[in-house]
């Protein structure tokens, strides 16, 4: 159990800001933001932590410090092609593994389509005579002389890291480990990643990507984490540092040093974890997270208030087959640019002004009107109080840019152009959202939007309106939500065993031992991981199909079924899932399995979300302002979010302001403040009914 007074701090380091959420033992929270510093990313982390620790209110109530940190430096390095210089060793005959990828040409309808640069170029890929067959038996292994020659070549290429990817190594990690030993014996101190040790799944290209990503971020993550550890140790002698992962969990520092790849997609994953927790507290079963920033909006789907995992995510153009929280990105953000095409149609995006030069109103050199300029022109965002007054906005410049658009479209005013552009941007988002939901087989009519990020709450009601969604739940501290998710996340690790293409009669020989081996591995990991948790549990999954099918389904299997080695129970889990999707089932004998999965989840003590005091007296707006809506100005109430108590109810047109975002409530929608501080926004007539 945690010591009573531990201060938990979640930190999400983004491109522009590093966000902090400090959770006191009584559930009280403090929020903080520091400008990010790409040159020295751990400096703002230290500065922010120091500030929090020096805060009297915090210091008096806490003893000990737990920091849970999500960082995108690994991701950014890879996206910007700044990862470590990596040499890849592959089985002879497969030098082009990374060049060929999975064979598809992006944008293939273009006559000028080009293939992406490989993650490691061909001159840094070396072939060695090391191979296993499809049963895992080693059929080829280099001689000492070949190892000498390969190591000489590695020395000449002078890499910062090495990845080893051998054919059929997914069956047993031994082959790659043996090669690693020989290499390290000749080149001590080399950072080596073996594909099967990180993620032993069938499919050599995808496994190679995982190994290369891990190798590429290894040196810089090691440097970053070590400097961070030193800085945090300087602040508190009892401080513990953990890292957020792409699967919505946390890892100890030593785990992150070994498998830095697991931290790469942690930002969006943490936000989704927090949304899932909040959805549970609010009784929302089907939800859509909507994290809208400057260039894109991240969307994740919640089912039964739980996050969904995917094994087909991407890092840039690279596939990632490890399970991560399913977050999809659509190219629509506050920086999306308005454009009129040659046939006179108004387009919004996909080009974005991002945060530099940004919207025209930011006065940072942007000249093309963006979605954010539209919010400003319509009066949705208060130009005198943007980011709590930290940034002054040039409204006239925004209006002038929009006026140019209006003139070309033959619209009467810049506001009319802004409204037209927002309706196009909104339809762009709702149609992308529908496509995402269709891919997962979800019905859009049931999902509540949970918006966060700088622009999410501003846009969310318009989106719900067009998409026909039932409502919106704006979380408290929407702009630092990912940092909150970091503190809430459980420790988690996923394991997988590939068992080839195993038919029904061979399953018992493979799956029970795979699960028990993985469980032993997970137990050992848990015992060694230095974490404060209040219990742990296992989740069992298996990738199955019927003989003759080429497509697997990942099926959950109950713990009792595994414990009692109930084979027909495993089959039944698959039959049921298959029947739900395809309307038919086959016999047990037709069942095949390809992979067996296990996850260990070690629960951190639950963060008690503070409850708002009930609202006292009448719900009074702090002021009023005119907002342009459906072709005319409507007088709208302005509420300050910190002044709203639990149970407060008010109707649109209204805006709710807080220091880091603005929620727009058009006419026809009603806000109810939930005791968690969440703004629940529903259609007004639905409330009356």
């Amino acid at each position, binding site marked *: 159990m945690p010591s009573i007074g531990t201060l938990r701090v979640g930190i999400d380091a983004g491109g522009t800001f590093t966000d902090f959420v400090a959770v006191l033992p009584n559930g009280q929270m403090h929020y903080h933001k520091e400008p990010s510093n790409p040159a020295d990313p751990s400096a703002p982390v230290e500065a922010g932590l120091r500030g929090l620790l020096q805060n009297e209110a915090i210091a008096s109530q806490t003893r000990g410090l737990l920091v849970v940190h999500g960082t995108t430096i690994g991701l950014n390095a890879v996206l910007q092609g700044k990862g470590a210089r990596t040499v890849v060793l592959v089985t002879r*005959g497969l030098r082009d593994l990374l060049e*060929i990828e999975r064979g598809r040409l992006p944008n*293939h*309808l273009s*006559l000028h*389509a080009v293939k992406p640069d490989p993650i490691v170029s061909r001159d840094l890929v070396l072939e060695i005579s090391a191979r296993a067959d499809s049963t895992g038996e080693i059929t080829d292994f280099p001689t000492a002389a070949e190892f000498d020659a390969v190591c000489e070549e590695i020395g000449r290429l002078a890499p910062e890291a090495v990845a080893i990817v051998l*054919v059929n190594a997914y069956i047993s990690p031994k082959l790659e480990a043996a090669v690693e030993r020989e290499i390290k014996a000749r080149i001590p101190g080399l950072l080596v990643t073996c594909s099967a040790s990180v993620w032993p799944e*069938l499919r050599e290209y995808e496994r190679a990507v995982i190994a290369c990503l891990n190798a590429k971020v290894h040196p810089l993550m090691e440097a970053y984490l070590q400097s961070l550890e030193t800085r945090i140790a300087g602040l508190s002698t009892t401080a513990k540092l953990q890292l957020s992962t792409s699967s919505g969990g946390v890892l100890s520092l030593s785990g992150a040093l070994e498998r830095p790849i697991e931290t790469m997609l942690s930002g969006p994953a943490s936000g989704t974890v927090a949304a899932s927790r909040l959805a549970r507290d609010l009784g929302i079963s089907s939800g859509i997270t909507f994290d809208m920033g400057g260039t894109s909006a991240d969307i994740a789907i919640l089912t039964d208030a739980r996050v969904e995992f995917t094994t087909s995510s991407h890092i840039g153009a690279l596939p990632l087959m490890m399970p991560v929280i399913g977050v999809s990105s659509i190219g629509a953000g506050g920086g999306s640019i308005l454009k009129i095409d040659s046939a006179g149609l108004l387009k919004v995006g996909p080009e974005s002004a991002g945060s530099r030069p940004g919207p025209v109103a930011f006065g940072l050199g942007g000249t093309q009107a963006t979605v954010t300029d539209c919010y400003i022109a319509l009066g949705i965002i208060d130009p005198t109080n943007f980011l709590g007054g930290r940034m002054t906005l040039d409204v006239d410049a925004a209006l002038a840019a929009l006026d140019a658009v209006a003139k070309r479209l033959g619209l009467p005013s810049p506001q009319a152009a802004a409204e037209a552009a927002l309706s196009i941007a909104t339809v762009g988002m709702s149609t992308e959202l529908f496509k995402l939901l269709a891919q997962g*087989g979800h019905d859009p009519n049931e999902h509540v939007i949970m918006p966060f990020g700088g622009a999410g709450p501003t846009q969310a009601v318009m989106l719900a309106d067009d998409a026909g969604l039932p409502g919106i739940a704006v979380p408290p501290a929407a702009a630092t939500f990912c940092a909150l998710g970091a503190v809430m996340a459980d420790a988690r690790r996923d394991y997988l065993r590939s068992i080839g293409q195993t038919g029904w009669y061979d399953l018992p020989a493979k799956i029970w031992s795979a699960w028990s081996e993985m469980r032993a591995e997970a137990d050992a990991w848990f015992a060694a991981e230095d974490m404060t948790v209040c219990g742990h549990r296992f989740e069992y999954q298996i990738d199955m199909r019927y003989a003759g099918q080429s497509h697997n389904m990942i099926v959950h299997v109950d713990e009792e079924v595994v414990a009692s080695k109930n084979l027909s129970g495993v089959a039944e889990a698959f039959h049921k899932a298959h029947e739900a999707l395809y309307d038919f089932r086959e016999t047990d004998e037709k069942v095949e399995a390809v992979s067996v999965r296990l996850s260990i989840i070690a629960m951190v003590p639950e963060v008690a979300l503070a409850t708002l005091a009930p609202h006292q007296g009448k719900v009074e707006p702090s002021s009023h302002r005119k907002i342009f809506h459906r072709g005319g100005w409507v007088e709208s109430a302005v509420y300050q979010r910190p002044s709203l108590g639990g149970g407060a109810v008010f109707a649109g047109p209204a805006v709710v302001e807080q220091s880091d975002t603005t929620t727009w409530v058009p006419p026809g929608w009603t806000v109810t403040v939930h005791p968690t501080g969440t703004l629940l926004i529903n259609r007004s007539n639905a409330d009356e009914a």
Partner: protein
Amino acid sequence: MKLDPVTLEIMSMKLSAAASEMAYFLKRTGRTLYIKESEDFSTAIANLSGKFVAYPQNVGVSGFFDLDCGPAIQAVGHLDPGDVILTNHPYMSKGLATHLPDLTVIRPFFHGDKLVAYGWAFVHSADVGGRVPSSISPSNSDIFQEGLMIPPVKLVRKGEIDPVVEGFLRSNCRTPEPNMGDVRAMLAAMSLGEKRVQRIIEQHGLETFENSLGDVIEYTALKSREIFRKIPDGVYEFNDFLDDDLVSPIPIRIRVKMTVSDGLIDLDFDGTDLQVAAAYNIPTAGIRHAQLTSWLTSFVLTHDKTVPQNAGMLDPVSIHTPKGTVLHPIFPAPVGVRHAVVHRVMDTENGALAQALPEFMPAACAGLIIPTVLAEPEDANGDRNVVVVEPMVGGGGAWNGHDGPDGRHSGPVSIGNNPIEVTETGAAVTILRYGLRPDSGGPGKWRGGTGMELTFKAKRLGSQVLGRGMDRFRFQPWGLLGGKPGAQARTILNMGREDERDLGKIDVVDLGPNDTITVLTPGGGGYGNPFERDVEAVLWDVKRGLVSDEAARTDYGVVVGGGVVDAAATEALRAGQPKPDADRMFDFGPQRRIWEAVFDDKLMRRIVAVVLAQPSGGRKAFRNRLLAPLLKALDRYRPLEAEELAELGRDVTRNLEAAEAAARPNSEHQAAA
């Protein structure tokens, strides 16, 4: 256009998203690997005349958006809400289905009791009967061998599947359950589409919806014509070849005359070869057809990828395909492998466009897909395990300012490969090399993309290798403006060993114990004079092993050894190179030059004309008699030789003259007789 520009953009996005939603739904619930892995399916929303207004992007088959549901709808007559039409008949649907495995459905979309649009979907099904399992074989000689033909009929009446139609379908295919699974997934996708259309109408009103169906097409036509105006007015002629039609060794010629005027394009395929007695014919019904226009749609999308994908994109294009040719075959010509010819139609249009826009268009790409298939020996039950080891593709053509992509290229199909570990789990095979093919990209100032290599051996005695879609063994992907052609395809037994042997274009090969087989695909054509290629770019290719030291010297005039360029020697070598012929736009490679020196445009047109003058039933026999000297002497596995071919040309010409004379009513020939 009737709608304002803001509403039009909104409607365009919503229609396109509805089509995509239908496709994602179908992909998720479809049953067979054709849907899950190859994504050989699509969906669309059509207007009341049956042309597509919205087509999915980034999912399913791209480029089928200029099909026409009109003829199939007319064939069925009155439609009630909840009805669904089924067809796979290439001739009776007038090219809506392009071969029999493509089970195609159309559903009328109603708002209340008013017909407002149509939904369309197709799935390439696992089998529709016929001579061979999976129904497709290049050597089928008529469409009856290709399986069950379904004229446009109502599969579903007012929401109820007609058991008689289902019964016919089930009884005439080898895989009734998976087929019906896929059909049910299509029906569900259709009903989702109707709901989405109804929702759009509820949000925006019926009038706006109806106006949008016309406006979206009109807008697209405006955009595409604007892009086609980039092509200078003029007449551009070009032809390209398939090596042969599999059942005979005679090349198949695709010929186009492209006339461009103010953004309007006419494609006249007059002079294209006669339909063949193998499954290479494209059933277009003589109308503008998606399979003849994909290079033009790619041209549009290269300039602006946001142009909506619907029938409007081809509104500025007209097409003429003479009846009785491979591009407009007469029933019952077989059509199963029509995509092999589609590649060459694209190359032909590319060549015509390259004359108009040499600074923009690429050299020829490899232009083929070879699914390399391993068939293992029969097991105790008599079943054979048949797997695609890898679907092999080749390199892309280079263009001004960029090398062609290595080992893949542009076009309507972008196919995923098979992980080696998956293949080795599914069959007793060891893959020894799967990679890029060095020195195969056509040399040029901008290099053609390399082809690919696949070498493997089978562990079980009695295993066979089958090659489908093999082409470009004789005629190379051409180079442009001084660029050299890409290397041609090869198949080799035991490459690098003493018993190495070139197999040429294979049908079925028996593998002996320890035999290895290698498939090498063509590289793309190069662009511009290779001796002007940036020395650093050549060095980078050498460092990556895609160009050998020797090829760097002979093809590029770059002297390199041990990863270092000898600048002085390079300069000297390059200075000594003769200037390339500035007038020669294309480098077709030696084999095509030899062929066309004899069988030139004039001779080929005369042959086609004299055969087409015959009654259709007798054309095949007549042509075989006319070309008897070629049929006898040409050997698919042997390069053409100039002198021999000239001799054959004289023999054919003699036959031709006699035939032409016989066709003239009062000819001397007849008088003499």
